[in-house]
């Protein structure tokens, strides 16, 4: 029977204690994900995305609060939770190198108690979908990182879980492989009503393209949670500019942040030029920003007014861009 919520957390907390310090990885996370949703976690490294996933997959105990997956408490009913979930993590080279792709996959179906005949049929189907059919008998040690990731993705789907956790699944994949994985994830949800996917990513476009709802998380706290469209709509009353300039100094950014009506400014440094994302309350503030640019001896190369993106929402909520967060993490 389908529960009301695929995932529900109330005031979820997680603290890591070391000899030197106490780190709050999650600080009161409240979530309610309904069956059938593709729910995304968007945030920089260390924001709390993976910690949340670890707790929900019963790998890590929470320090406080409650968490339920498919109606079962992760702390007291971990075995029941495990019957309904699976997980795929990206950016790692996991897998038993001495086993073939098929053997690796078959082994995990046995951990879930699947009938061998059914398991092999499903393995064939998914190998075909992910373009790995000709590698079924290849030892995993001979696979590239991308192909291993595809195999792991198949492992996640093999057991037909009610809740599938995808933790940065496209990390390290080439464009084509990432697209295949995204397309199939959406297809799997569309053809299996009620199945739920929780995706963590720091690719804005991935979250925008795939997710029904997105939670923006930073510092262990959820800053916003809504559909990508609604999140972007929240910036509709603001104006968003993209500027390409000659390299600017940090003092320029500080000066711009002081201007009344500047919601946020973020910088992405490139080769001989900087890209600035600027969110203003009003068009009329722009001349003041440009004047600061001149004051700091920087030149304007191009200027474009554009529709807000999830990146803008993130910058507006967190105060800096995702790439800036990762650079300082």
């Amino acid at each position: 029977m389908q529960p009301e919520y695929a995932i529900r957390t109330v005031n979820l907390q997680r603290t890591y204690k070391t000899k030197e310090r106490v780190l709050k990885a999650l600080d009161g996370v409240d979530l309610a994900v309904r069956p059938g949703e593709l729910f995304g976690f968007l945030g920089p490294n260390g924001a709390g995305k993976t910690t949340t996933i670890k707790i929900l997959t019963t790998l890590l105990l929470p320090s406080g609060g409650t968490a339920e997956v498919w109606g079962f408490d992760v702390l007291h009913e971990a075995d029941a939770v495990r019957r309904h979930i699976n997980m795929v993590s990206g950016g790692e080279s996991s897998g038993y190198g001495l086993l073939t792709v098929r053997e690796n996959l078959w082994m995990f179906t046995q951990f879930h108690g699947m009938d061998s005949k059914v398991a092999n049929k499903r393995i064939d189907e998914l190998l075909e979908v992910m373009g790995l059919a000709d590698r079924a008998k290849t030892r995993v040690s001979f696979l590239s990182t991308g192909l291993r990731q595809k195999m792991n993705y198949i492992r996640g789907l093999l057991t037909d879980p009610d809740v599938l956790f995808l933790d940065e699944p496209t990390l390290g994949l080439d464009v084509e492989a990432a697209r295949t994985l995204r397309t199939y994830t959406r297809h799997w949800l569309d053809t299996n009503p009620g199945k739920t996917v929780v995706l963590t990513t720091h690719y804005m476009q991935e979250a925008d393209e795939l997710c029904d709802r997105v939670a923006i998380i930073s510092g262990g706290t959820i800053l916003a949670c809504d559909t990508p469209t609604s999140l972007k709509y929240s910036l509709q009353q603001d104006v968003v500019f993209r500027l390409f300039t000659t390299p600017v100094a940090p003092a320029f950014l500080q000066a711009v942040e002081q201007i009344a009506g500047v919601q946020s400014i973020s910088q992405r440094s490139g080769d001989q030029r900087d890209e600035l994302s600027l969110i203003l309350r009003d068009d009329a503030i722009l001349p003041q920003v440009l004047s600061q640019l001149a004051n700091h001896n920087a030149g304007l190369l191009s200027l474009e007014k554009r529709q807000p993106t999830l990146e803008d929402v993130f910058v507006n909520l967190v105060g800096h861009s995702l790439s800036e967060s990762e650079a300082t993490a």
Partner: protein
Amino acid sequence: MQRFWQAFRVGAWLGWKTESNWTNPLFYILWSLLLPMSNGLIMTMMLRVLQRTGNASGADLLPYVFIGTVVYSIVALLLDSMAWAVLEDRERMGMLKYIAITPSSMYGYLWGRGFAKVSINFLAVPLTLTFGALVLDIPIRLSTIDWPLLLVVSLLGLLIVTFAAQILAGVTLMIARHAGFVGQAVSGALYLFTGALFPITVLPNWMQVITRAVPLTYWLEGMRRALWVDAQNPVYNTGLNQLSTSNLLLILLGSAIAMAVISIPLQRRAEHRAKEKGLLDMNTAY
């Protein structure tokens, strides 16, 4: 129980695949023959040197040492097997977390891995004993082996070691670094404290107390009695020859039950602690 056997089967299958996949059958048979033969020769030479430098009683301790060392090779293998599986799956393969989130039994899986490791290497034990009997004149004869005793003692001993291995696997789960040395350190220490190499009477008194408290001491003694008809002869002054075989069996049975009672909650506690500290998917790259 069904989950346990299911996971045991998969663990044993994986263990067999990963442990035996490194070579072809011909090399495996050669390795199984050469390893015990070289071990046997080293032991013989060591003992002959010792007999020239000491041994006032003049008793030939070669059968004692030979059987003890050969049987202990299984202890070392099994003791380390589960801890090694934890380490390998977590750190090298990055798969422990994926196993941990399945509805299967972690104990069953680890027992399966241990079983595979022992099974693959088990052939070396009868081969070495045969080598000893034929080449080194160790008095092991098919007609004098106490088969029922051998069966019961082997079973109880393997159970004791398996539960001990489970405890070590639990300890490994909770350790971030140096986890690889846990099994080796314990099996190394037990080599001294089980009378595998020499009669426990040669140890200082305080060491004898420890040795008598280690169940594996009685296992090795039981294996010697089953294989070697003269094992209880007082001339060898083993320190255990006064103990009747029925009492020895009772000690082994009690030890097996005690180890089960201790190891299962300890493993559960270790798993809980590992989840508390976030160690199930740790990769120290150490």
